[in-house]
């Protein structure tokens, strides 16, 4: 292996395929991550509510769901959704992107529900007791007292989940969805160069998550400052 040839190849690939990496690949990766976190948060919140519900069957269903998702490999879940969903729902036939997105959403929702649940449960029980003793109902207590404080625990953790999901979308390349990792595979096939496209993708992934984690850190500090005021 010769580093200077690799360097030259990387520059050559970047000039020739920059749009594949930075436009096609990046936009698929980012859109997949954004969709996953957006719907993952909505469904995650619902699952978290179910887990804290007073109705036992809702608690069971949600905790079984969370345990199964967290207890099986994500790649396996992707395969299952990719091949299983079109059989269950025929209109998803040949809709590879949708199947993969749904799989990612279902996976993320389980993790997000744990983030939300622990964020809510981290709020001191004394806050709830004080609110209830003033006469606030359970729902009002959640809305006015607990959630505003829980958000400070939840938002930074959600930011980290977004970073995780951004990296996890690379698994979508298993099905040639078009994301950054798919581009690596395509360019590797066209050029017979394995290392160079991987290196380029690694740098892009790293820059992406680095910027995201800086933003999360910023958010975290702002929220913490909000506490002291």
């Amino acid at each position: 292996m010769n580093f200077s040839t690799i360097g030259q190849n990387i520059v050559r690939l970047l000039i020739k395929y920059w749009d594949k990496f930075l436009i096609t690949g990046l936009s698929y990766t980012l859109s997949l991550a954004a969709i996953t976190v957006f719907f993952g948060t909505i469904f995650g919140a619902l699952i978290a509510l179910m887990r804290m519900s007073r109705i036992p069957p809702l608690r069971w269903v949600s905790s079984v769901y969370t345990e199964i998702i967290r207890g099986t490999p994500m790649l396996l879940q992707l395969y299952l959704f990719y091949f299983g969903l079109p059989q269950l729902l025929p209109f998803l036939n040949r809709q590879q992107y949708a199947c993969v997105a749904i799989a990612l959403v279902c996976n993320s929702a389980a993790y997000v529900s744990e983030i939300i649940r622990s964020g809510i449960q981290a709020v001191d029980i004394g806050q709830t007791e004080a609110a209830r003793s003033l006469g606030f109902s359970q729902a009002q207590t959640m809305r006015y007292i607990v959630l505003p404080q829980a958000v400070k625990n939840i938002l930074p953790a959600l930011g980290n989940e977004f970073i995780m999901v951004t990296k996890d979308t690379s698994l979508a390349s298993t099905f040639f969805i078009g994301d950054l990792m798919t581009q690596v595979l395509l360019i590797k096939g066209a050029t017979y160069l394995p290392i160079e496209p991987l290196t380029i993708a690694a740098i892009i992934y790293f820059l992406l998550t680095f910027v995201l984690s800086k933003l999360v850190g910023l958010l975290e500090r702002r929220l913490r400052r909000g506490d002291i005021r």
Partner: protein
Amino acid sequence: MATSGKLIEVRDLKKYYNGEAIKALDGVSVDVNRGDVMVVIGPSGSGKSTFLRSLNLLEQPTSGSIVFEGVDITKKTDAQGKRINIDLHRQKMGMVFQHFNLFPHKTILQNMTMAPIKLKGISPAEANEKAMALLERVGLADRAGAYPIQLSGGQKQRVAIVRALAMEPDVMLFDEPTSALDPEMVGEVLDVMKKLALEGMTMVVVTHEMGFAREVGNRVLFMADGKLLEEGTPDAIFNAPQNPRLQDFLSKVL
């Protein structure tokens, strides 16, 4: 306000945990009259907090009844068959906690006005005015815009008291309100409570401050093992205790 009429009637109140393994309350019966300053004393783990927290159903009793202003709030429906909304009854029972439990994301003024505005439909202007008058009374009017974290422990507890008072309750429940305070701040909180008692507020106070019990209380209850073992005037309890457990307890704390 005159000392007349029963405000809370507690009958054979029991609270068990883990089946019957832990009897936090084991059959307590007592009446709280309007204007009473009832001080509850007893060793740690004797059920004082459980008793107090049962009065506004923060703890759901295992059995027994609590009649508050004529309504048995432990039941699902009242005598006329109307559904009991515990939230409405809690509005009339203020509670002060050992650890203050102020809302950290709200200013002092907001801590006090939130419940009156949202629960009683009082206008923000009126709620602010009443809250400021209350803060004035406890010497904290200048901290109205501050956040709880900016206050000392004694200041926090004084705010917690006036936050409860802002709902204009008929009774105030205190669970060891000075136990989490630095010694030099205990006095300022006890002073506020004493003023409140002199104004005729009905109070049930769990405390280890025997000076307060003697000076401010009109009735003292001694609890041990979830039972009410002795009840009397401060004079009787402190100067002529009957129950050996009480005698033993007093010999340790006085």
